[in-house]
């Protein structure tokens, strides 16, 4: 009989793989779910606001107003769909689906500018989709600011008679995700999300299934030690989860042009740490609940939902009420996501996310220790 430091893990790993491979459904879910979700989220969950349909009512009809209006359509953020000829046409325009924004340039626009006076323009935005409306308002604001600066510089030139350089040349650049594509932002989130599903749910189910079938009892009367059982049962899921990670990265690269800017080594290390936390959580669940059905429900509630809602995957944490923000500090995916985005999108080194790494390590250690202790208790 084996003794001492040698670990008898292989029979369990081997068996676990055989069972996973035999159960085609699980295998399919583990391997193809990531790709399917990436497609779904990548294309459907799109926060980009492009080609916003805009109607324009130019009361002024001057060269200044035309110049001003033109600013909106040099980018592909706005698309002129209507040109209005009277104020009355504005009414009911936003009720339909065709127009999201109406820009009204008043008749005194040019006169005010020429006289160096402040002037007003009217923007009417369809606020039904508040997220998109906020983004659109941001774009409009930036365009108007830039135009104001230009006008100001020109009037200085006229008054002073000499060339005036713009005090601040506002040239916005978005780093790391220059096209502001949601997909780039989502790929790291998806990795966290899918790893959470594969690790927590599958380990919880794998252990509870053995308890339900009574095979756990048979293992418990054997000389297998708790650590061997835990490692033997988790290693296959670590391998599969890593495989799922690679699938997501690959599809992310092919479909959404998301490449890993930073070190692959760092990425692997941080992913492994996160995985162990998830596996620990799955084990912990399996020591608490008794049926597969309950294990599945508990696993979904404690892993999938917080990862989806509270990690910053889809909803920005800073927009949440303060007490919800406090809760996000105990969600491991929050830290993993921030680290992943740093490595994948920014190419950052460990110095940029060492605090996230430390939290993830603590979380994984606590989960593994607590679940092993509980496991040992019911295995002994």
């Amino acid at each position, binding site marked *: 009989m084996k003794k001492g430091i040698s670990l008898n893990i*292989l029979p369990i790993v081997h068996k676990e793989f055989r*069972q996973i491979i035999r159960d085609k459904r699980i295998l399919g879910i583990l391997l193809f779910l990531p790709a399917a979700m990436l497609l779904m989220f990548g294309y459907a969950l799109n926060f980009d606001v492009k080609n916003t349909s805009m109607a324009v009512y130019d009361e002024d009809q001057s060269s200044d107003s035309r110049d001003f209006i033109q600013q909106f359509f040099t980018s592909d953020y706005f698309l002129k769909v209507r040109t209005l000829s009277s104020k009355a046409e504005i009414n009911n325009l936003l009720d339909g689906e065709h127009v999201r924004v109406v820009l009204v340039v008043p008749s005194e626009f040019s006169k005010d500018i020429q006289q160096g006076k402040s002037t007003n323009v009217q923007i009417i935005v369809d606020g039904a989709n508040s997220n998109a409306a906020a983004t659109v308002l941001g774009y409009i604001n930036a365009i108007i600011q830039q135009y104001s600066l230009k006008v100001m510089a020109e009037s200085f030139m006229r008054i002073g008679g000499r060339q005036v350089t713009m005090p601040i040349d506002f040239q916005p650049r978005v780093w790391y995700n220059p096209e502001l594509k949601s997909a780039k932002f989502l790929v790291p989130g998806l990795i966290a999300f899918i790893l959470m599903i594969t690790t927590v749910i599958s380990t919880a189910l794998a252990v509870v299934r053995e308890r339900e079938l009574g095979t756990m009892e048979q293992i418990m*009367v054997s000389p297998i030690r708790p650590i061997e059982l835990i490692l033997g049962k988790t290693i296959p899921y670590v391998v599969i989860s890593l495989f799922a990670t690679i699938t997501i990265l690959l599809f992310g690269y092919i479909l959404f042009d998301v490449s890993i800017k930073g070190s692959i080594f760092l990425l692997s290390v941080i992913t492994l740490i996160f995985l162990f936390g998830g596996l620990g959580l799955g084990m912990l669940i399996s020591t608490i609940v008794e049926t597969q059905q309950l294990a599945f429900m508990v696993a979904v509630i404690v892993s999938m939902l917080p990862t989806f809602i509270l990690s910053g995957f889809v909803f920005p944490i800073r927009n949440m009420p303060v007490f919800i923000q406090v809760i996000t500090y105990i969600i491991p995916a929050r830290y993993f996501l921030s680290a992943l985005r740093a490595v994948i999108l920014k190419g950052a080194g460990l110095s940029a996310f060492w605090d996230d790494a430390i939290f993830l390590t603590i979380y994984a250690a606590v989960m593994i220790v607590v679940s092993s202790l509980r496991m040992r208790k019911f295995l002994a």
Partner: protein
Amino acid sequence: MKLQFANKDLQSGGREADRNYAVIADQLTKIFGNFVAVNHINFKVKRGEVFGFLGPNGAGKSTTIRMLCGLLVPTEGTAKVDGFDIAGQSDDVKARIGYMSQRFSLYEDLTVEQNIDFYGGIYGLEGRRLAERKRWVIEMAGLSGKEQMPAHALSGGWRQRLALGCSVLHEPPILFLDEPTGGVDPVSRRSFWDLIYDLSNRGVTVFVTTHYMDEAEHCNTIGLIYNGRLIAAGSPTELKQNLNRYSIYEVHCTQPVDAMELLKIQPWTAETSIFGSAFHVSTLNEPDTPKKIDQILARNRIAARKIEKIIPSLEDVFIHMIAEEDARKTGDTGV
């Protein structure tokens, strides 16, 4: 196909006299909350014997066997299995026992061979030894040609024999079987017991719980457990001698239930119990009992077809002992 024993390791097991025993339970107790499942029981199982642990459902059979296998921690008392303490030396105990329960515990989705591979693996078997033992189990269980069949496709008897095979892959000197024949047809039960005898003949100590009386008759020694207490132990013959003070009569008559009620209240009646269409009456040893029974029944217009003195079965013995235990207990609390 010879069995190897782990007896070399006995030196760690304590007293000289204990060598003759595979299992020694000393005041073994398990309490769940307010419920005393096993109440200070003592017994010894001799090496190489088939020890039957009998009792009604909920008597504490499974709890006892689960403590001996290290699946439950005793609340009080100790036990030694193959000389090792079940609490302090559970790793040594686990390496020396085989365990199989009524639930069979096979992986339904894996094949016969894969199940054997796995159970062999967790006991550290590999290479030639695993291949050798695998051949032995497949032959023993009559599964030749079915190696690649998934376990869920096997019928009850085969699965049960495969489960037994898996639990003795590592050739344990002691085998614990917890109601191994539950839910299996009589033919399979018979062939399963043939396997148990076979193992016993090779020197394996078999500790088996059951509530089948015919199975109990096959054991070398029987312990009767009732309400968590061991109320009798001995060979089937010895236990039957406990009833020497009594005569057992089998009565065939019309209205057996009414007849039983009438006889139960007689001062010379110890116990009555229904057996199929007849019933058994155990009485004090008096010569004219059959005549007295006949008279009582006749007085109440019940026609006795046959009143016959029989050799007590184990079932008679157990019913008698359980009744005595119940009487003792109500007597205790009544005082």
